[in-house]
């Protein structure tokens, strides 16, 4: 547990003065997914770590950016709480700062909200080397623009996250895991039917000819619904492997596109996996031409990622509003990216 905020601010000030650039780094666990940031020098946040405030009764945890996600989930677990969005931990690694900066959520996203949904406040160093605080530790807060949620998923292009406060959720009393054999088209129909009912689901995904579902909630409810939905018992480890890319990024021999689509979209023959009750598709580039969707991006072992961002003038102006000298993470999201 260390606080190196002063050093971070000094590095930003120096980089700005020298017109050089910084690549913001944590555990480097997402380099393959989002691409390694460019930059003349690495700005390592791993040392800036530690949980600074955890109030289980208030459903809030605040920690420095370099805090390992595993430390956070362990602390929450002791009080029977969790991060509702269940962010991925590739190879078991990842920091809070990386989770917030990437804005990635796990399989529970459609049912329990996104990581961005749970962000209550952040502390950030902008491109002017100013230490700023937005939002806070309370759920309802409309004072000023919602900069915390704008920075969630901004991939470090707007500033260096120093700390973040997240709303936490009670850990479900009971989890049940089921699966059934189904083709992709039938799986989408089934997913949408279930997602439109008030069911205690916390995961609904299709891969390799099987529909998998996870139920979470009070024991009586989970038992009742598990009986109604049928299926056969499934391996609980499936959901961690899915969350951490072991069934998608890590296995595919070819380039996969991660596409966010309207969830009822019929499956593409190139979809190797449907997650988020249909809203997230992992699409094999070799088998489909329909992958350049807005916000889609790729990942493949050993090759650099591609992405289909729409970088508008408005996005460029926002980059300039936070980081006028373009100190942070060149090559990710902002004006330096070709759209």
């Amino acid at each position: 547990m260390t606080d190196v905020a002063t050093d971070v601010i000094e590095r930003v000030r120096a980089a700005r003065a020298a017109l050089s650039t910084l690549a913001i780094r944590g555990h480097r666990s997402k380099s393959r997914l989002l691409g390694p940031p460019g930059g003349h020098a690495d700005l390592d946040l791993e040392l800036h770590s530690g949980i600074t405030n955890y109030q289980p009764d208030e459903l809030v945890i605040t920690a420095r950016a370099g805090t390992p996600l595993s430390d956070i989930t362990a602390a929450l677990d002791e009080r029977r709480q969790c991060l509702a969005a269940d962010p991925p931990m590739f190879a078991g690694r990842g920091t809070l700062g990386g989770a917030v900066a990437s804005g990635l959520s796990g399989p529970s996203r459609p049912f329990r909200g996104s990581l961005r949904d749970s962000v209550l406040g952040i502390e950030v160093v902008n491109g002017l080397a100013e230490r700023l605080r937005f939002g806070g530790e309370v759920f309802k807060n409309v004072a000023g623009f919602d900069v915390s949620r704008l920075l969630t998923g901004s991939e470090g292009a707007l500033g260096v996250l120093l700390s973040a406060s997240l709303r936490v959720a009670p850990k479900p009393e009971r989890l049940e895991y089921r699966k059934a054999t189904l083709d992709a088209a039938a799986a989408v129909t089934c997913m949408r039917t279930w997602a439109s009912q008030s069911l205690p689901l916390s995961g609904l995904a299709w891969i390799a000819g099987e529909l998998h579902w996870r139920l979470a909630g009070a024991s009586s409810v989970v038992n009742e619904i598990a009986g109604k939905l049928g299926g056969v018992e499934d391996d609980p480890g499936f959901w961690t492997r899915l969350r951490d890319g072991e069934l998608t990024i890590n296995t595919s021999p070819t380039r996969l596109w991660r596409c966010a689509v309207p969830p009822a979209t019929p499956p593409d023959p190139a979809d190797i996996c449907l997650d988020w009750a249909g809203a997230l598709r992992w699409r094999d580039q070799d088998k489909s031409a329909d992958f350049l969707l807005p916000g889609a991006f790729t990942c493949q072992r050993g090759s650099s990622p591609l992405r289909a961002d729409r970088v508008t003038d408005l996005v460029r102006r926002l980059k300039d509003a936070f980081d006028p000298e373009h100190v942070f993470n060149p090559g990710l999201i902002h004006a330096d990216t070709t759209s």
Partner: protein
Amino acid sequence: MQDGLLLSLARLNRILEVDPANAIARVEPGVRNLAISEAVARFGFFYAPDPSSQIACSIGGNVAENAGGVHCLKYGLTVHNVAGLVVATLDGEVHELGGKGQDPLGLDLRAVVCGSEGLLGIVLEVIVRLTPLPPAKAVMLGAFHSLAAAGQAVASIISGGLIPAGLEMMDRLAIKAAEAFVHAGYPVDAEALLLCELDGTEAEVAADLLKVEAAMQTQGAFRLEVARDAASQTRLWAGRKAAFPAVGRLAPDYYCMDGTIPRGRLAQVLDEIARLSVEYGLQVANVFHAGDGNLHPLILYDANQPGELAKVAEFGGRILQCCVAVGGTVSGEHGVGVEKLDQMCDQFCPAELEQFARLKAAFDPDGLLNPGKAIPTLARCVEVGGMHVHSGTGRFQHLDRF
């Protein structure tokens, strides 16, 4: 404001599309909040955020304020329930922010437009996320001899692993006013009242009711009442929903405040409000969204008495300062507008306000949208004494402030 144009979006009032398969609806900004839930009910859905004004307020206004409602503890605020926006900036560009999918890669401008009080762009279309209607619902009322005990009950419900659909608290004055106004059957001898709504499957509601009952009893609730049918639920909610107009009958005028605090500081903040109430000689009725720490102290006054308006504004300002001091915020859901500009100077430092100004300028470089609202100028903060600024050290002096 001089030479301003008023842009009303009230007639952009069409529901453009209900898409049950994707669980979304696409609507224009002038559509009323409740009208969305009414339009989608036949598909088994509702639109979750339900501000008390939902019969009249528009979804465009909800986006501008990031509106909450009594059910936001479980279902979230507007920002959690809006999947996409079509927004026009004043350079004539129309931006599609988000859409029917979830979390595409890239900057999420949708999130920053929510709650921006019309300063960033004009919302032309809103894609709202729909929530499946829960099959069962119950409301529990608990009456307590002290606000502290009711506060403890809230803490133990939540730390016990339950997130109720709604969890509201009222103090003695608010209870009495509401009871006199709508005859909801509230216990007028209570110092504090809790209303807890639970929803889900039948089994879920039954299990959760037991937990809430136990938590309330442990904290000394002297009366418990469960409403299982729609009519008695409506009756129990009626007092809470009519609390503002009910309190309005107690005095010629009332001033509704809106701040959020960490729930654990509730007793401390209420003591301070009670102390200020004596100091200013003005009565206060308290209504809270207890689950999320959002306070609505209603200060009673008479605007016809010379000086009373200024006094009430100062009183309100000090309540908000107290919210900031305990780690809360000057606005939970009603927004800043022009009313709370001075308190923004308490909550944010000059560099933070300047960052807001640059963010605003990225969307609206000429500062033409809702000038003078939501974000104070540094000059104003210096004048109210909330902030110390060295002259000439502020950045971006060339930018117009708004």
